[in-house]
């Protein structure tokens, strides 16, 4: 039980889900290699501007296609020259006129929305039956967004369970939390559906945290601060903080795009969007350093938790009432895996 599991051998990851693999800006006429769901993926843009996602491993030998070259809309393997079209079919090999029958690499459905490149690594036919959550604040005018990307040595479910625990913010990052958060926490409402979890709570009017007061030019919230958090899918967690102040409502959106590299490693793309102080580079810098710091602390905490799981496996846990959202997220993932015929490893996370 207390043996260390080899990285990557751990937990199952739901495949019937659209995951964000890159930003639109990152995908261009170069070959971009990423890893998701335990497999290598190659991304590039066609001449017409579409995004292509292919299995990043040549059908000939163990060699990544991303180490090859893009000619028009075909990829030439860098080792011995097999050429693949954007559908993953091998269309020519240098040493013989006939293409080996059936030679191909997997091609994954993609779509581009809200400045992100999403890919479907599950059964390709099912892609069109599933939605990508809408995150309009990432690209709409009237919003300013800062963000970053982190490779985290912790499973995707640990990250979601952490986001579900809104009560940890005052501990992990007291300076960013609404002031009222620290002393008398308002009741937490958890709203569930088959596939989603939403948390909400409303803080009474109170002094704003210093950074926000400064950006808004007001010292106190005049009305309630409404905090809402959403588990949309294993790929997306968002938080909404709306503060009523003298001149209107200041809105913030935290977007956390979680892409499982495998069962115990994740990519986190985080974005913090605000609809105030939007043309203000100093505010951008402040937000970036403050929240970059916050996500670094989350990363450190989750890597510590994953290390405990790796070393000692799952243990008995005591849950408190406020954990109901995290438990619900775990239940949804367990259900997704069951429907896909995958086992929810008992030590996926904790029991």
């Amino acid at each position, binding site marked *: 039980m207390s043996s260390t599991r080899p990285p990557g051998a751990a937990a199952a990851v739901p495949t019937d889900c659209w995951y964000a693999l890159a930003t639109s800006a990152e995908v261009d006429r170069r070959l971009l290699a990423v890893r998701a769901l335990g497999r290598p993926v190659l991304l590039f843009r066609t001449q017409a501007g579409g995004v292509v996602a292919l299995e990043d491993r040549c059908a000939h030998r163990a060699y990544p296609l991303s180490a090859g070259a893009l000619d028009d809309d075909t990829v030439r393997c860098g080792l011995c020259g097999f050429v693949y079209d954007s559908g993953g079919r091998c269309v020519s090999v240098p040493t013989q006129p006939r293409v080996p029958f059936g030679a191909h690499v997997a091609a994954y459905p993609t779509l581009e929305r809200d400045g992100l490149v999403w890919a479907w690594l599950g059964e390709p036919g099912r892609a069109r039956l599933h*939605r990508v959550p809408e995150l309009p604040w990432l690209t709409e005018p009237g919003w300013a967004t800062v963000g970053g990307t982190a490779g985290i040595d912790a499973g995707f479910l640990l990250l979601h369970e952490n986001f579900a625990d809104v009560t940890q913010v005052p501990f992990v990052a007291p300076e960013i939390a609404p002031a009222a958060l620290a002393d008398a926490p308002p009741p937490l409402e*958890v709203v569930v559906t088959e596939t989603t979890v939403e948390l909400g709570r409303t803080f009474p009017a109170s002094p704003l945290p210093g950074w926000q007061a400064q950006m808004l030019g007001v010292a106190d919230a005049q009305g309630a601060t409404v905090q809402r958090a959403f588990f949309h899918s294993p790929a997306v967690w968002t938080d909404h903080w709306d503060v009523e102040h003298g001149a209107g409502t200041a809105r913030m959106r935290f977007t956390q795009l979680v892409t499982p590299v495998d069962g115990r490693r994740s990519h986190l793309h985080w974005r913090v969007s605000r609809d105030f102080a939007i043309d203000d580079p100093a505010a951008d810098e402040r937000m970036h350093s403050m929240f970059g710091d916050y996500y670094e602390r989350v990363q450190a905490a989750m890597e510590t938790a994953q290390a405990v799981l790796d070393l000692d496996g799952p243990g008995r846990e005591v849950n408190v009432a406020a954990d109901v959202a995290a438990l619900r997220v775990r239940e949804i993932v367990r259900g997704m895996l069951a429907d896909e015929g995958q086992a929810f490893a008992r030590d996926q996370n904790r029991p």
Partner: protein
Amino acid sequence: MAETRTTLREHEAELVVASVTAVAGGVRELRLADESGTGLPPWTPGAHVDLVLGDLVRQYSLCGDPTDASSYTVAVLREQESRGGSAFVHEKLAEGSKVTMRGPRNHFPLVSAPSYQFIAGGIGITPLLPMIAEADASGADWHLTYGGRTRGSMAYADLLAGYGDRVTLAPADEVGLLDLAWILGDPGSGTLVYCCGPEPLLAAVDAVCEKAWPPGALHLERFAAKAADAPADGERAFELVLAGSGVTLQVPPDKSVFDVIQDAGISVLGSCHEGICGTCEQAVLEGEVDHRDSVLNESEKAANDAMMVCVSRCLSDRLVLDL
């Protein structure tokens, strides 16, 4: 540090009837639109919602396009012996009516498999429609046998005809009752059976599968409570331990496990309180469950690891839940 009070509830929204379409004799299809602009939660094939119809709450399967974030579609049969829900839908709802919806939830999920036998009786076709779309998109091998009284009473028969010989339409006035022994004659390994329809059909399919199919192959859904019996000598009291919360409670004969948990201030979800919707399911760690619900099938009941706390009770003196 002050306590954080936490409440748990199901998603609820007020929807507007955007269209009403007659899709077969006695069957109305309702498209329920979200006018709030926030979008409706995603769902998967087999999911259902509660509709609040006057004083009644009824469950209806979602049968539209799962990627449509702006509306849900249900189809409702006018039942001869209506318990009031279908009469309400047929008489009181029109374009523009407002309806409160709870959910979606899913206790009839489509498990991934290489092949499926779908069996629908009458309006039981509704949860199977999105399942069939998914099975087809997955490239699975599947077949649907769809029985009904008459061709004209069978909703979506035209749409299904588009799948060609994967679909067998079997109106009883033309071909008689479904020949289940033949339809289920080949328990192929890896094949799953999904069935929804009236109680006699479910019972018959259940009986055939019990005998000839591997355990776990059959998945069925009921929308009316099967009669569940209280013991002749009256209900008994027992001790209830909530392991996760670390509390021990007493369940008296006249109170449900659900009510006892809730009275203790612990959040549990519930909807129908009749043992048919599956919302209140809890994991059982210890104790011999007296199942009274219509959600779990025989093998799930025998597994004794889950129960519907709104109606089911305990035969032993101590029941331990993972809550």
